Structures are given as C-alpha cells and as structure tokens.
C-alpha cells in the first residue's frame, strides 16, 4: 500500500516535471473554480451572440404593435382545466387596469399555445450568407413568447438582448484587438529601442492617462457627424475606445520587454546572429504571450462598459444598431423603469459579461506564472 502510493506520487511528479508550460497553466487555471466558470460563461455568451438570429424567437425589429410594453410571458404546464400539459403560453390581449388607468395585458381564457422547437418564424440572413426562417423555439399562434417582455414598440426584449450582446461583445473584442495592435507596436518600440523614443512614448501615455476617459470619449464621439451610417459609427466608436485603451497594454509590453531585454537568452540569440525582428518575434514575444492574454481578458470588460456608457448617453451607437447600451437608453427615465422594470434586463447581460471576464482574467493572471508557487 505504502509502496503503491509512493509510485503514484513519483508518477505525478514526473508528469508535472515533463508538462509543457501551457499544460501547467491549464492545470493551475482549472484549480480556480470561479475563473473556470467565468470562462464557460464567456463561451456561452459568445456562442449566443454568434447564433443570436437562430436562438431568438423573433427578429430584433419585429413589432408586435398590440403588445406594447407587455410584461414577460409566463410559461405554464397546468391549463385552465387543471390538466397537466407540455409547456405552453397563453395568448394575451390588451386591457385597461381600471384602478391605475394603465395599459395592462390579460390572458385570453382557455387559449393554450404549446412551445415548439425548431419552428419557422421571421426571415433572417444567417451570418449574411443564406436566408432562412428557422428559430430554436417559438409558440404556436396566436400565442407569442416574450421571455423578457417587450419595449415601447412591442419588440421582444429577449431577442433584442441577444442581438445587443452580439454588438456589445464584438465591439469589446474588436476594440481590444485594435488597442493590442497599438500597444504592441508602440510599447514594443518603446521597450526595445529605448532612448528618447521611449521617453516620447511614455510622456504621450502619461498625457493620455491624465484625461478622464468618459469625458474624453464623449468629446471624441460627439464629433462624429450625425449623418454617418450605422456601420461607420460602429467602427468609429471602436477606434475611439481603443485610442484611449491602448496605454495599459503598451505599458505592460514595455515593462516586460525591458525586463527580458537583458536576459541571457536574448544575449545568446544576439551572439548567434539573430536580427532584431527575430529576437522580438521568436524569442521575446512568446515569453509573455500569456501575459498579453491576461491583459486582453481584463481590458475587454472596460471596452464593453465604455461602449454601453456612450450608447446610454446617446453619443455612441445609435438605433437601428442594437447594443446593450442602446437598449438601456430606453430605461433612462425613472417613471419608465418603475412601470416597466424589465427594460433593465440588459443591465444583467452587461454585469454577467463583465463579471465573467474579470473572473477568468483573474484566474489567468494567477495561472500564467506556473513556476511560481
């Protein structure tokens, strides 16, 4: 027994010593349960964002004009005759609440519209490639399913949230890659070349960091002409976000490069006759790729938040583009929120996304240095 456990121990040690850096990072990351969960949530969210047309029961712009500000649909399994049935929803019709003089909805007596999977519904162009009308789920007419209620034009909030997270999540990604590019190039030059160029770039970074980001973003995005098409605004916003966001990455890259520049393996490479480009891309960059990944993971949420903030203020993305911030713009007014609290649901998407990225980034940061104990 004792012998066996010793062998087991030895094997484990051997496995540890033989593992590649990547494997070590992954093992260490897996131990961090919260981080792992964050990674899964990010995966699910991007999956939903990628297939939002298929997953949402309606198109984001489909108006159900007789269901304005309808609350979320209740899914039932017991019908009005107390029979157990497959999940169904009741059709609703508008009504006036006599007490508060407010519009409300009451179920149509005895209507029972079962939820079906893979139904035909609104037409859409899947990834801009082919036209289809297949949706993951839907209900039989005349019922309609609004999991998160509807907005002031009777559009399904659930569908809109999915479409909105596509824009918000992708703008975060895109913005981060732009700032990664800027950060790598400028931080790389700054750290590797040094001298007065380093000084210049560092001063520039310091100056940019002096600006409070939201007022600066506001100033830059207010300069966008209002007649620009939606796509152009989308890219302009991405550029504006990354113009401010690259400084952190550049600092990180510079710090790492300065630390690594003096290492023996760089000296060895130089003696072996490697050029600057080869030293940077073959020897230096791979040694801190993991740190870059961490920096990206932690930078994406701030991009998402920035886009949400700008769109919320009305100087970021504009309808007909649907992002989470654009959706929240509807919920700016206290009375609206008090009467139709489901308009705040996009907040949850923002919070969950940011939380997931932060957790995953935190776990990654702990894991990237697998040799430290």
């Amino acid at each position: 027994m004792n012998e066996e456990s010793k062998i087991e121990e030895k094997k484990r040690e051997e496995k540890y010593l033989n593992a590649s850096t990547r494997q070590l990072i992954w093992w260490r990351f897996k131990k961090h349960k919260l981080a792992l969960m964050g990674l899964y949530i990010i995966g699910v969210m991007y999956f939903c964002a990628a297939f939002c047309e298929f997953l949402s029961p309606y198109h984001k712009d489909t108006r159900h004009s007789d269901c304005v500000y309808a609350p979320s649909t209740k899914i039932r399994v017991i019908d009005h005759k107390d029979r157990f049935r497959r999940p169904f929803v009741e059709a609703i019709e508008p009504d006036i609440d006599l007490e508060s003089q407010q519009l409300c909805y009451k179920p149509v007596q005895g209507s029972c519209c079962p939820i079906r999977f893979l139904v035909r519904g609104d037409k859409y162009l899947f990834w801009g490639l082919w036209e289809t009308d297949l949706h993951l789920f839907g209900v039989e007419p005349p019922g309609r399913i609004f999991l998160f209620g509807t907005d002031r034009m009777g559009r399904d909030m659930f569908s809109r949230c999915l479409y909105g997270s596509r824009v918000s999540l992708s703008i975060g990604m895109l913005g981060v890659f732009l700032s990664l590019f800027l950060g790598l190039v400028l931080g790389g030059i700054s750290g590797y070349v040094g001298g007065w160029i380093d000084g210049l770039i560092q001063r520039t970074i310091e100056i940019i960091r002096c600006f409070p980001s939201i007022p600066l973003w506001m100033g830059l995005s207010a300069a966008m002409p209002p007649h620009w098409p939606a796509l152009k605004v989308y890219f302009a916003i991405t550029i504006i976000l990354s113009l401010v966001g690259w400084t952190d990455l550049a600092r990180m890259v510079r710090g790492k490069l300065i630390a690594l520049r003096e290492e023996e393996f760089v000296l060895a490479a130089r003696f072996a006759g490697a050029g600057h480009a080869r030293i940077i891309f073959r020897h230096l960059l791979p040694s801190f790729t993991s740190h870059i990944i961490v920096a990206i993971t932690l930078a994406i949420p701030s991009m998402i938040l920035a886009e949400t903030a700008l769109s919320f203020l009305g100087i970021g993305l504009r309808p007909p583009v649907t992002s989470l911030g654009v959706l929240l713009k509807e919920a700016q007014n206290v009375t609206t929120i008090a009467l139709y609290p489901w308009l705040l649901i996009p907040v949850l998407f923002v919070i969950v996304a940011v939380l997931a990225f932060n957790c995953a980034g935190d776990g990654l940061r702990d894991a990237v240095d697998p040799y430290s104990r």
Partner: protein
Amino acid sequence: MLAYVIRRILIMIPTLVAISVITFVIIQLPPGDFLTTHVAELRMSGESVDQAELEALRNRFGLDDPLYMQYFLWAWNCLHGDFGYSFEWKRPVSDLIGERISLTILISVSTLLFTWAVAVPIGIYSAVRQYSWADHFLTFIGFMGLATPNFLLALILLWFSFAYLGMSVGGLFSPEFAAADVPWTLAKVWDLLKHLWIPVIIVGTDHTAKFIRIIRGNLLDELKKPYVTTARAKGLKEVNLILKYPVRLAINPLVSTIGWTLPELVSGIAITAVVLNLPTTGPLLLKALLSQDMHLAGAFIMLLSFLTVVGTLISDILLAWVDPRIRFGARETV
C-alpha cells in the same frame, strides 16, 4: 524636498500644454467652425442673424486666422480665465463652470476618502483571513462592484428608491436650495451633505472593490515575507504585528495611485451625474456636446484633465514626503 517639488511642477507644464492642444483639437473636430453651425441653427429656427455681431465674433475668436494662431489666441484667453462663449446659454463659459467644477472636486475628494475608509479594513480582513467564507463573500461583492458600471448602479438605485421607498434620490440639493443664487449658508451645506452620500457611494463602489483587491494582494505578499515570521517568532502580538509593518507597506498604493484614480473618479462622476441629475459637470458637458457647444465642452474637458494633473502632483509630493526613497531615487530616474 523643495527642489523635487519644483522639478515636478516644471515637468507638469508640458503635460498641461499637451492637454490644451488635445482639447483644442476636440473643439475643432466637428465639421465646420462652431460659428457656422450656430448660424445654421439660428437660421433653421427662423431667428435673424446680425451680420455685425457675427463679424465681431469671428474677429474675437480669430476664425479667419490659420489654425495655430487660433490655438494661441484661445490658449491665451484661457490663461486669463476666458474660456470662450457658450452659444447655447448665451453667456461666457467661465460663468457657467465655476460652481460645477468645484462640486465635482468636492464629490471626487469625498469619494476618495470614502473608498479608503471602506477598503482598508476590508482589505486587511480578507488578507488575514484568506479563504474564509467572509473573504470569499467580500471578494464576490467586490467583483460585483467592479462589474456593475456606476451609471447602471445609479439607475438600479433610482428604480429601487422610487419603486420601494417612494422617494426620488436625484440631485444634490433640496428644491429650496437648488438655485445657484441661494447663498452658502450652514443650512445649505447641511442639505448638500445629506444628498452627497448617494453619489459618493455609487461612484465609490468599483474603486472600493479595486482597492480591496490591491490591499489584499499586497498584504498577502507581505505576510509571506521573512520579517513577519521573525516578528511572530519574537512574540509580537498579532494585531500589532500586522498593523504596524505589513499594512503600512500594503496601503502605499492608495497614495501612489491617486494619479489614475482621480481621472476615473471624475469620469465616473460625469456619467453618474447624468443619471442622478447632479449639478456637476456631467450633464452640462453632455448637453454641450450634443448641441456642439464646443467651447463649453472643451473648457470642461480641459479643466477636468487639469484637475487630475494637479491631483497627481499633490499625490507625488505626498508620496515623496512619506517615502524618502522616492525623494532621492527620483533624482536618478527623472
């Protein structure tokens, strides 16, 4: 010490100039000069345009001069406290911004103090009791605080207080004190204090969370160091030991990060103020940007940035005063 302060102030000057250049670029960014936009708007609303007045304004801002001359004229005026003219409000910009900027400063400073007061004890607690359920709970709350953007928190709070408490939490003053011409009496100050805590908490949450993370991480690093073991071996009381040595090192970042905390606080206040309708810079800046009242917007952006530069300066001086290593080390690096 004095030499260090003077050197820091001299370094600050190019930064301030660069900020003013960027601000000027932002002012110039909207297509066409602002006067043309203004005239177009006036024509659209059917008001007549006085050509003589227009000519006077053109001269005043040197709109017919080349761009760099316009910049010098504008910067020169700014140095003399003349930030231009707001077409939206038909008043000089400097009249509009004074009180709003000072309220922004007030909220920033109180928020900073609030975050310190909350983050230090919690950070120490979660480091000392690492992986206890309270640590996990506080870490989770901290993450939530980090993930919830200020303005959304403000929105949720607005809804909550409206729906469940039946009161509205917006504004910084009660209606009877709200007008700008009410003199600053003791009653008004008290009224301000009664309203101040809401924006302070809202803007402070994510920084509190961040500081807790920083303090916890630093303290954990310090606690592993040999001197802590030595002190413990010598029989020092645990409370004294932790508070006297590692904590002092662990809270150093509180002072040294003022430089980047202040800009974030200011921008957090800007957007929270829009939701809560506070009489600070945020709502007016947004309005100015939306109506392309660029002189007003530019003045705000520039003054807020100056504010953070000055804040950084103060924090650097504080840090040098606290920590002689910086005072002397700086001589080599700068």
